[in-house]
């Protein structure tokens, strides 16, 4: 590296600003620059897109191959929408990492102090991070979710599947000789596909909130995975009279409830909340975490 001699500290004086203040729009631009300028963002998003569409094709292909050998109960539970959204299980952990890293990478490196010294209102940092990562994940998740849906249905069609006539019931599906294929216009399908993306959005914001609270990458991701994977196991070993009334409120089961096509509900009937209620409750959990994160961010030393 060569050293340049310094004659002046400013090639041109920086034009001053005598109105307004460093606000949310500034922080949003900054957060977008930070998000797009690290490779981990693009790797995570690529895993979501490729993984979801790939798993949709794979699982739909496997299930289509099994159709001919399925019994009545299995045919009744044959859910082409859910098969096509299998990738959501993978994506939920990827968005957890993405959401947590947005803030914990700054605590890990110490650059959080640089970030907080750019504004005298810390809440704008938190708001900007949530808005930017939330917008990116929502767009990618929705596009991925719809693409996965159509990919899955195309795979079923390729196996000779046919869409059941409008108004068909589970009975019609069981009696049908061809593999059922779901149209996006059929009851509940578009909602399930849309809410799959919303589920990933809410989990991203939840993980980001946990990151603000725990300020540690491994801690935040562990807590996130614990909520999705370990909490169901803990509830499961409780007495069944107790666990059966709690299971439906677990975030992982809320996610399941959001993508179940209720007209086809069979094994989940009465066990899960309705899709919109599940989305609302998960949003409430997320909001609580974000409120705690905000209070701690404002109060704690950086």
């Amino acid at each position: 590296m060569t050293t340049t001699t310094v004659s002046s500290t400013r090639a041109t004086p920086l034009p001053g600003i005598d109105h307004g203040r460093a606000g949310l729009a500034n922080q949003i631009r900054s957060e977008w620059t930070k998000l797009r300028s690290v490779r981990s963002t693009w790797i995570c998003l690529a895993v979501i897109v490729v993984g979801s569409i790939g798993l949709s094709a794979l699982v739909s292909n496997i299930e289509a191959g099994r159709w001919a050998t399925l019994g009545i109960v299995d045919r009744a539970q044959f859910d082409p929408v859910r098969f096509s959204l299998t990738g959501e299980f993978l994506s939920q952990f990827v968005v957890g990492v993405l959401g947590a890293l947005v803030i914990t990478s700054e605590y890990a490196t110490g650059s959080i102090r640089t970030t907080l010294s750019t504004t005298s209102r810390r809440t704008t940092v938190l708001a900007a991070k949530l808005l930017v990562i939330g917008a990116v994940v929502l767009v990618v998740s929705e596009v991925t979710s719809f693409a996965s849906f159509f990919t899955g249905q195309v795979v079923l069609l390729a196996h000779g599947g046919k869409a059941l006539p409008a108004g068909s019931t589970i009975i019609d599906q069981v009696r049908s000789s061809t593999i059922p294929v779901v149209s996006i216009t059929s009851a509940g399908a578009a909602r399930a596909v849309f809410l799959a993306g919303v589920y990933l959005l809410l989990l991203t914001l939840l993980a980001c909130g946990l990151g603000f609270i725990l300020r540690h990458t491994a801690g935040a991701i562990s807590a996130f995975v614990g909520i999705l994977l370990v909490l169901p196991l803990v509830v499961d070993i409780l007495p069944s009279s107790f666990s059966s009334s709690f299971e439906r409120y677990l975030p992982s089961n809320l996610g399941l409830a959001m993508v179940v096509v209720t007209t086809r509900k069979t094994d989940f009937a009465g066990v899960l909340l309705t899709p919109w209620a599940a989305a609302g409750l998960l949003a409430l959990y997320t909001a609580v975490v974000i409120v705690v994160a905000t209070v701690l961010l404002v109060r704690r030393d950086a």
Partner: protein
Amino acid sequence: MISASHLTKSYGSTRAVDDLSFEVRPGVVTGFLGPNGSGKSTTMRMVMGLDRPDSGTVTIGGRRFADLHWPLREVGALLEAKALHPGRSAANHLLSMAQTNSIPRTRVDEVLELVGLESVARRKVGKFSLGMSQRLGIASALLGDPGVLLFDEPVNGLDPEGILWVRTLLQGLAAEGRTILVSSHLMSEMALTATDLVVIGRGQLIADTTVADFIASNTEATVLVRSPRPEELAAALRSAGAGVVPGPDGGLLVTGLDAAAIGDTAHASGLVLHELSPQHASLEEVFMDLTADMVDYHGHTAVEVAP
């Protein structure tokens, strides 16, 4: 202008900063000295609004950090050079900062050129040496063209050429009328760079003065004399009221009399002098003397400090 008033900050049972008051004036470089763990970094974090004081206030140009509308345009800081996302390029790091305060994109290229990093602007900062990271940290402090600048150990990891560059830069910034507070553990460097000094130990103020006054008021004037008959000279000087201790290589270190009075005394006693030289303490020596009992973490090898 930075004004700290009765700043106090504890972490658990450790009092990091204790009733600290000082002022940093514009136009000169102010050195911020103290042993490791004396509270320098904590104080700087409180100036930047990152840590909240338990009591007391600190203001930048008369306003608390929380009241600044465009913080980067008012105060720039280099607190930790390596506090960067390793996967981001220098240019993107600076751009993300510039956007927070509506600083035009062209300013990013200007400060990169200013610190000599324009050729590595697109390289990931994780591959930067400590010296390059220091330059990037200085670039980010200068990004908003602020009137107040804080640098925590800016010459760490720099080669001699880089150290000279920082010295010239800091003095240039001060000459433009900016307020510069710079901490360093390199006393000799501080003596060359700074005009004013804020010295702290165990979180408390030891001195808020100029480098010259700090050295003068904390050292007893000492004169080194040599004579072929040191015992007789020592006796003569003692009877004239001076303090005399053995110096290096058979010389005598004399306090309480200046060089002229020592020469006169020797002459009156008929003694020959081979050397008569007033001793100047370095900033480092004065600092070490003054803070010797305030160092929390020190090695076990005793360091002999020459007067």
